[in-house]
């Protein structure tokens, strides 16, 4: 198998983990060809996850913007409220095949943690979730959900105490118990074969979108847009349009307070090639090759790296990677709430922000599909805090 995407990807892990990766690769390659495995997964995706998810024409929002037609791929309507479960369901079935008793996972926003805890409960497996302490604080509702589902949540205090640090902790634990424990990576990153696995399990998003767009519009979209942290929902959406170069694939990275401020999480737009978490990819790092802490209002995009295939697609200009800052994401969040009655996740709001920016430049024959990767219930507290900070800043300006 090809373990790289151009120069990216690979298996840069300590020797202790190489056996577990080989075992996973072998199991997956066999399962992929096994009709029974595919049937079981498909059955669960239909009856448990609630697929297929709708493609919805956001008419009021589109008309308000007065340009392109914006469609939403409603991954927020999946069970657990995000695209993450497409992948956790697939990997949990692999874990079952391998006879593993326990699932461990890293999580940022907590959506992957919830989706992992969910499948662990469904299959009667033990579950431990690693989460940076900063994320535990800002995504408390998801921590409660994981607890309710029977998972243990381990709060990680190292480094910036976000997704990168949670992944380090999970890898450490996995090194000592890979015989009984399955590491369920949630993003299209990590050592091979994870980027391939995650892409394959998430490709259902792109495949459905393509079919639905043809049915609804009689043609393919002009652009498909998804937010990119590690890049799982984006790679899943892009997978449906690999053989159609006329469909522009757009990944939106978290610009935080702006690339120039250094307070962001845009690895492709602001990082350099590096090695971490088992892969060669773009990472945010300092002039000595130390990884930098990231910043974004959205916990799910707050990761210093990005999946290797995205790095390759960016270099080859096969997809376009842009940035949306915190303020644009919040404005997009508001717009979708008010014009469509849909509360989007802050992660997905970054993809929406791009569509809102671009739509007025086109006419209504232009179709933009935004992957609405998750719902925003978990973010209400963050939104409130964000507004408090802004209003304080404004009143300060007014008084001086």
């Amino acid at each position, binding site marked *: 198998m090809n373990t790289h995407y151009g120069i990216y990807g690979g*298996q840069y892990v300590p*020797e*202790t983990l190489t056996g577990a990766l080989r075992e996973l690769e072998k199991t997956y390659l066999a399962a992929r060809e096994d009709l029974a495995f595919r049937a079981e997964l498909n059955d669960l995706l239909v009856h448990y996850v609630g697929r297929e998810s709708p493609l919805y024409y956001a008419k009021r929002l589109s008309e308000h913007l007065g340009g392109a037609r914006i469609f939403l791929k409603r991954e927020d309507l999946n069970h657990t409220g995000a695209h993450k479960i497409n992948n956790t369901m697939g990997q949990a079935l692999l874990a079952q095949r391998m006879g593993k008793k326990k699932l461990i996972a890293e999580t940022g926003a907590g959506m992957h943690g919830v989706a992992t805890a969910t499948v662990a409960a469904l299959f009667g497996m033990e579950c431990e979730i690693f989460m940076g302490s900063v994320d535990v604080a800002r995504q408390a509702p998801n921590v409660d959900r994981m607890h309710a589902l029977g998972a243990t949540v381990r709060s990680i205090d190292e480094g910036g105490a976000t997704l990168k640090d949670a992944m380090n902790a999970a890898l450490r634990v996995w*090194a000592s118990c890979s015989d009984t424990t399955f590491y369920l990576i949630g993003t299209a990153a990590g050592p091979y074969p994870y980027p391939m696995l995650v892409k394959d399990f998430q490709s259902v998003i792109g495949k459905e979108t393509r079919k639905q767009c043809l049915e609804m519009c009689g043609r393919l979209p002009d652009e498909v847009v998804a937010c990119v942290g590690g890049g799982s929902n984006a790679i899943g959406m892009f997978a449906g349009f690999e053989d159609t170069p006329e469909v522009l694939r757009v990944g939106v990275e978290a610009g935080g307070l702006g690339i120039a401020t250094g307070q962001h999480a845009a690895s492709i737009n602001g990082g350099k*090639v590096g090695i971490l*978490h088992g892969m060669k990819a773009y990472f945010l790092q300092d002039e*000595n090759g130390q990884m930098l802490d990231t910043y974004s209002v959205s916990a799910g995009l707050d990761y210093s790296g990005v999946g290797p295939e995205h790095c390759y697609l960016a270099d080859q200009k096969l997809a376009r990677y842009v940035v949306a800052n915190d303020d644009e994401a919040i404005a997009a969040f508001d717009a979708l709430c008010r014009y469509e009655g849909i509360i989007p996740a802050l992660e997905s709001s970054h993809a929406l922000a791009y569509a809102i920016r671009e739509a007025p430049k086109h006419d209504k024959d232009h179709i933009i599909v935004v992957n609405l990767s998750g719902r925003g219930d978990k973010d209400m507290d963050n939104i409130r805090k964000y507004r408090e900070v802004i209003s304080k800043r404004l009143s300060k300006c007014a008084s001086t």
Partner: protein
Amino acid sequence: MDRITNIFAAKKPLVIFTSVGYPTEEQCEKAVCAAIDKGADIIELGVPFSDPMADGPVIAAASQVALQGGMTLNKVIAFAARIRARYPKVGLILFSYMNPLLHLGYENVCAQLAAAGVDGILPVDLPLEEREELLAPARKHGLHIIPLVSPLTPEERVAQIVEGMTGFVYYINVAGVTGARNELPPDVAEHIAMIKRHTSLPVAAGFGIASAEAAHAAATAADGVISGSGFVKATSESVEAAAEFTAELLRGIK
């Protein structure tokens, strides 16, 4: 013969790992000198990294302190050059995660290490599958790349790992991260014997060794004994504690 080969030919060496720059650059350097004065044969110079995912709590915390103190790969190389100037015979191995090496450039870093008198590199997160990219520049500059074998490595893979390598083989005693353990697993000797069926290189055993007893057990099974977290911990206490820790391990080996 090169320095590392000579050392292993003469005795069962004690290999000491230090997290360079911990707790301060000065104290670390004094502790390393004290260890060599006591009889440590090879020093592994640990390059602190922001994301030490193969390390246990002691070395991970030491890395963070060293980075906060401003330690960089360039400074580690300068540190190595100073040790080399003072101790022409001691073995020096750079112990690093891949990212700092990639960032400086493999060719550049290998040239600088060779010039500083370093004997080899032990890349923590560079398994067989990816090692070619570092192997070529390392060989060009006469540096060993020290291969790692874990208790989970199957025999056929061991054969591939040791093929064509130089210096010594690092056997990781336990599957997991770095750090002291109460006792060595019983299968260490068996694994090392298996490795030796595939190579004439010496095999040193590391991970979990922090007492005279553990050092003794490791020396019985292996050609050399590696200790890391215990030394790092002692270094943070005092230079004397680091020297005493080294002496204790040496008592176990003899």
